[in-house]
């Protein structure tokens, strides 16, 4: 079959081309000659554009081979042919690349087709191509190699990433053009004497980083073993670090980059633990071997013996028993990495700060692709997750989506609103995956990538047009000045809000959010105790519509709030608006057909086998995981609920921000406490500061103190032991005993002062607190009490 060699070749080319782009940029940038020519950047665009074409061809090949009836007319991918610039087939830049041309190293492993009950049209076709590109080394039984693992998910991801990356590269050509100079003035960074920083422009460096990122991201998607995933995982992390800190002169940018990096390291620590467990117990990193070795019975349960251990047969033929708890640990560990990368609760605080990077970066790295890598990995590693882990994922997702959405309601920086919305949407995906909606979660991943990158680019266009003003309260009425941006943004907003006229017109977000909400509903119908998992996303669907339309109304609607900015605003040049239009088409239409549509079908093709029928009652934890039919039953109902929520959120936003009936500042004053709480992002940063930063500083200070006293003692040892001891004793008394007592007293006193603030003395708040208390107790009662 032609796909066996063609598809991996195409994808490998698509993967390696950006590396070439990176090399070109770096070489040109190193020459020190800074001119105003743009051709190296066009090179990078060409690389990624060709990569897109390759992935597209691969996707088409796959589709034709699997015989997707629904995809006959391939008009959806048509409109972006203009990205196909010249196709520089450079080879031989790196040893890896050489390996890729080495056809003999390929080992095709055609796994048997999955028996997918819902996917009736599924013809016998290898659902997965996996093999090794190059073996880096063999250490005992540990084989470190560059593998690939290609299923329809990989293909869809490839196409999505390359398409969006191409658009964003083009956009960045316009957006970053002011960097194309030797005397760039950074208005946001100040030297010590208060002047603006002057520095050489970094146009090429930007494109170099972007290309490197694309390479890493594609490598992550293509990776055939979990170790390789980890390597590229770290690579995208580094790219993200470089891109967030792109404006290194700004302190905020440097801080944000550090924060992102450290937060990700925390998650990666868990990831490493997971890797160790996987390696020590399964003896392999390869996905295909891992997934095969885990025994599942007909209903999808992981088979355990009396001791609660799982008997696996490793690829080397031997069988061993793994304690079930270790599977949980491995799953949780890998998921911890995903928490960091996808900015899930409690590591979500880095993503909003990451908006310090240039807007195209936010669009590509921090909304569409890299942050979604966590979701992708959960989807990829799905067969290894036991129900406990899935439940954790679902809850983390639910908490995240609600938390971020509430913060987005009060954010005023246009990019931060989008950042929080990203976190929230990532939470949706995690939730979808956690409640056994594998395809639903990844479906949302794809649709979200389109509409969120669109919205980020629109915001970039707005920021560009308003001369780097990001505060929404200073905008307003921009619709008249920037019609294309406003229109495309509206498409994105409608898509993310999930507004639709069912049966008539529906943008992509409607379908994918529906799928998640429906899965959640099916899940809680089977497990009523976890009702929050449905309630929160439903509520958040309304909040999402509210804050997105708030953003739109604030920015584009009504009267200009700051005449100066309004007067100078202008529509962006064609090189920036063209990508907007392309992405708008995809944001609107990529999910056409919903669950019957080609995108969903495509994803469904690589769904893990045990998902389709659901798992009636998992061995441990007594979770009932819903299958396709259960989800299908409630789909219409869940869709109605979600639509209702979205519509009410939209109306509320219109009433509050579209019309002038409500005095916003008055309302803000009345809800000051909540507003403050949300504006301060639920005080997570402060909490982390108090919990982690301070103790570290204090411990460091303590060690410094010990150092000093130790040295002191050695130096003065001759001064007489008795005197020393007595002095030391007194010192101890004063420092520790008194200090400790004083510390406790001070700590309690200050917390007492804090608690005084709760007692506001306002009667109506007290009355509200009765209701709040009752409802909260109710929630506690029904979540924690025995069933």
């Amino acid at each position: 079959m032609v796909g066996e060699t063609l598809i991996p070749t195409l994808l490998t080319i698509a993967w390696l081309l950006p590396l070439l782009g990176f090399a070109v940029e770096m070489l040109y940038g190193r020459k020190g000659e800074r001119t105003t020519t743009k051709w190296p950047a066009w090179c990078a665009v060409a690389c990624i554009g060709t990569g897109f074409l390759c992935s597209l061809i691969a996707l088409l090949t796959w589709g034709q081979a699997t015989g997707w009836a629904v995809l006959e007319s391939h008009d959806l991918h048509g409109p972006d042919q203009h990205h196909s610039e010249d196709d520089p087939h450079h080879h031989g830049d790196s040893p890896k690349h050489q390996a890729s041309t080495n056809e003999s190293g390929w080992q095709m492993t055609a796994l048997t087709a999955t028996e997918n009950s819902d996917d009736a049209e599924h013809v016998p076709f290898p659902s997965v191509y996996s093999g090794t590109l190059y073996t880096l080394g063999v250490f005992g039984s540990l084989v470190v190699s560059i593998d690939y693992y290609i299923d329809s998910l990989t293909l869809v991801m490839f196409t999505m990433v390359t398409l969006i990356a191409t658009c964003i590269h083009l956009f960045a050509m316009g957006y970053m053009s002011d960097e194309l100079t030797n005397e760039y003035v950074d208005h946001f960074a100040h030297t010590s004497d208060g002047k603006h920083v002057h520095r050489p422009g970094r146009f090429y460096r930007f494109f170099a980083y972007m290309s490197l990122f694309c390479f890493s991201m594609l490598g992550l998607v293509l990776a055939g073993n979990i170790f390789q995933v980890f390597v590229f995982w770290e690579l995208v992390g580094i790219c993200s670090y470089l891109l967030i800190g792109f404006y290194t002169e700004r302190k905020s940018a440097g801080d944000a980059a550090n924060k992102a990096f450290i937060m990700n390291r925390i998650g990666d620590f868990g990831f490493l633990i997971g890797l160790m467990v996987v390696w020590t117990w399964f003896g392999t990193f390869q996905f295909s071997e891992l997934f095969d070795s885990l025994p599942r019975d007909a209903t999808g349960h992981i088979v355990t013996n009396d001791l609660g251990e799982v008997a696996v047969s490793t690829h080397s033929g031997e069988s061993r028993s793994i304690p079930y708890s270790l599977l949980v640990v491995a799953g949780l560990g890998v998921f911890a990495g995903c928490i960091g990368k996808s900015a899930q609760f409690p590591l979500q605080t880095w993503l909003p700060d990451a908006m310090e990077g240039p807007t195209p970066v936010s669009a590509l790295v921090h909304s569409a692709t890299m942050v979604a890598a966590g979701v992708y990995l959960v989807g990829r590693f799905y067969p290894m997750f036991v129900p406990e882990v899935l439940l954790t994922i679902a809850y983390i997702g639910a908490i995240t989506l609600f938390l971020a959405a509430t913060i987005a309601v009060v954010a005023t920086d246009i990019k931060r609103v989008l950042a929080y919305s990203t976190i929230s949407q990532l939470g949706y995906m995690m939730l979808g995956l956690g409640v056994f909606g594998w395809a639903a979660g990844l479906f949302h991943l794809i649709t979200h990538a389109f509409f969120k990158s669109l919205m980020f680019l629109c915001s970039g266009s707005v920021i560009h047009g308003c001369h780097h003003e990001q505060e929404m309260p200073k905008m307003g009425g921009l619709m008249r000045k920037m019609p294309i941006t406003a229109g495309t943004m509206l498409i994105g907003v409608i898509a993310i809000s999930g507004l639709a006229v069912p049966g008539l017109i529906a943008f992509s977000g409607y379908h994918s959010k529906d799928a998640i909400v429906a899965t959640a509903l099916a899940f809680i119908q089977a497990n009523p105790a976890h009702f929050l998992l449905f309630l929160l996303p439903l509520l958040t669907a309304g909040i999402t519509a509210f804050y997105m339309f708030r953003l739109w109304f604030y920015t584009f609607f009504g009267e200009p709030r700051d005449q100066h900015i309004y007067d100078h605003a202008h529509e962006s040049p064609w090189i920036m608006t063209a990508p907007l239009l392309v992405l708008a088409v995809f944001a609107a239409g990529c999910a056409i057909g919903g669950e019957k549509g080609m995108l969903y079908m495509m994803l469904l093709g690589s769904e893990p086998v045990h998902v389709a029928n659901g798992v009636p009652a998992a061995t441990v934890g007594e979770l009932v995981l819903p299958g396709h039919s259960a989800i299908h039953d409630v789909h219409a109902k869940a869709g109605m609920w979600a639509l209702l929520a979205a519509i009410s959120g939209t109306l509320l936003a219109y009433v509050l921000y579209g019309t002038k009936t409500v005095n916003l500042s008055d309302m803000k004053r009345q809800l000051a406490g909540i507003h403050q709480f949300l504006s301060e992002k639920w005080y997570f940063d402060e909490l982390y500061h108090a919990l982690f930063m301070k103790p570290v500083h204090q411990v460091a200070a303590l060690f410094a103190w010990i150092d000093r006293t130790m040295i002191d003692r050695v130096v003065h040892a001759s001064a007489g032991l008795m005197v020393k001891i007595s002095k030391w004793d007194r010192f101890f008394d004063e420092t520790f005993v008194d200090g400790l007592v004083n510390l406790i007293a001070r700590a309690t006193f200050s917390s007492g002062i804090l608690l005084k603030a709760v007692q506001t003395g306002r009667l109506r708040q007290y009355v509200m607190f009765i209701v709040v208390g009752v409802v909260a107790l109710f929630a506690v009662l029904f979540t924690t009490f025995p069933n």
Partner: protein
Amino acid sequence: MFSQLIQNLIDDTLKYSLGYFEAELWLCATIVALLLFRLISVDRLIPTSILALTGAIVATVVAWFQLTTTDGSETFFTGMLIHDQFSVYFRLFLSLFLALTIALTILTGIPDNEDSPDFYALLLGATVGMMIMATANNLLMLFIGVEMASVPSYAMVGFLKGRRASSEAALKYVVYGAGAAGVMLYGISLIAGMLGTGDMSLLADRLRIVADNGVAGLGDPEVRLVALGTMLVMVGLAFKLSLVPFHFWCPDAFEGASAEVGGFLSVASKAGAFGLLVRFLVAFSGDPSGAELMTAFGIGLGVVAMVTMTFGNLAAYGQSNIKRMLAYSTIAHAGYMLMAVSAMLVMQNSAHAGDLGQEINACLGGLLYYLAVYLFMNLGAFAVVALIRNYTFSEEIDSYAGLIRQSPALCVCMVFCMISLVGIPPFGGFFAKLMIFGSVYKAGDFHWSMYVLLAVGIVNTVISLFYYLRVLKTMIIYDRPADARAVRLPNLENVYVGLLGAFVLLLGCAPFIADGLNVIAGEAAGSIFSAIVTSR
């Protein structure tokens, strides 16, 4: 046939019920007498306060005699109320406390001669309500008891009607209380409707009938509704107990009200509410079907207790007004006492409840002992506040500087009360706290969360030390400013506070009194679990 019924009713009422109800009757009679005497101007001859005091003392004596004669447990007034040692203990406790409060008001003279009939009527009326709370055996009596205790309290908080703070406090109290009562009534309606009865002694049985498969779990919608109702009723009680998060009224009401009223509310209303809470929860527990549910409730109460005492202790720190500080201290103490209820529920609904009779008794015994000690120490503290206010017209802690040099008796009493409130030996508060902590420790065998509760309780005891000591430090170490008003108490007042202080000390270090109280409390606690006699 009908006349036979009537005859039965009359017999029952006159022979049994009224006898058990004697203490309350005396109080009711005193209320009527207070009004009548003013009508015919007898109050110019005999001060109304003396009359009220007499009524309270008579009720105390009656209750004391009931204590010695009561045995077992029976319902009276056709199942409305229940008579056992537990009821009698509360009756005695409340009437004794009433007498002490009246004595205090006589000393401080807070209701002037004209208003005193009104004030004492309210005071007595509230006390009757609290007694009913502690003896209720029917959901209706539960609600009536709470209302009877609350509504006069609202009026008492607003009794200083010319003061803005007082009227503000009363308004906050009444609105909050009415809201809580509404919530509670809703809960009662749910329970009564779902279980088809208001008789509390039947609730556990009915719950078993309702529950599927004989195990009450929240997956069962009927049980869920009952659990919701139970929670709502407990919210109403939590308001009376000022448990976090239903404590908001407490500091405001206490600061606005006079110290005498504050002292009365902090002890009596809390005691009544605890009696009712125990009765209500015991009514639901004991049946294996509800064991899991009630254990969960017990742990939930434990969590509430932790939050409550931590909140109360921490918030007490920043206070400059002593009444407000004492209000937060009251909240914290409610948390300590709630620990006992929590431990009781956990043990009573564990699998080994049959072998644990002694320990379960000890929980409740600890609670009752704590209440008794709390009576003296808290009343002592509030009495000192009220007396000092009469001289300095200030309730700020700073104005207490150097009082030891002017009125040592007052200060010694305050020292005793505060140290006992912290729980340091050899004062009564220490033993009370020890008993409760001991019970919680035992309950730890049945659920680990009890150990957490215990740890939180101990930590709280430590941190509460600081703010109590701050008051003492102000009183004893600082110098009295030269321009401060002098506080020189007459003898009678010295004797009064001295008596309260002595009791706090004696309950800690005099084995005879302490043991006696302990035995009485233990018996009273045991009686609540004895089989109820309903038919005669």
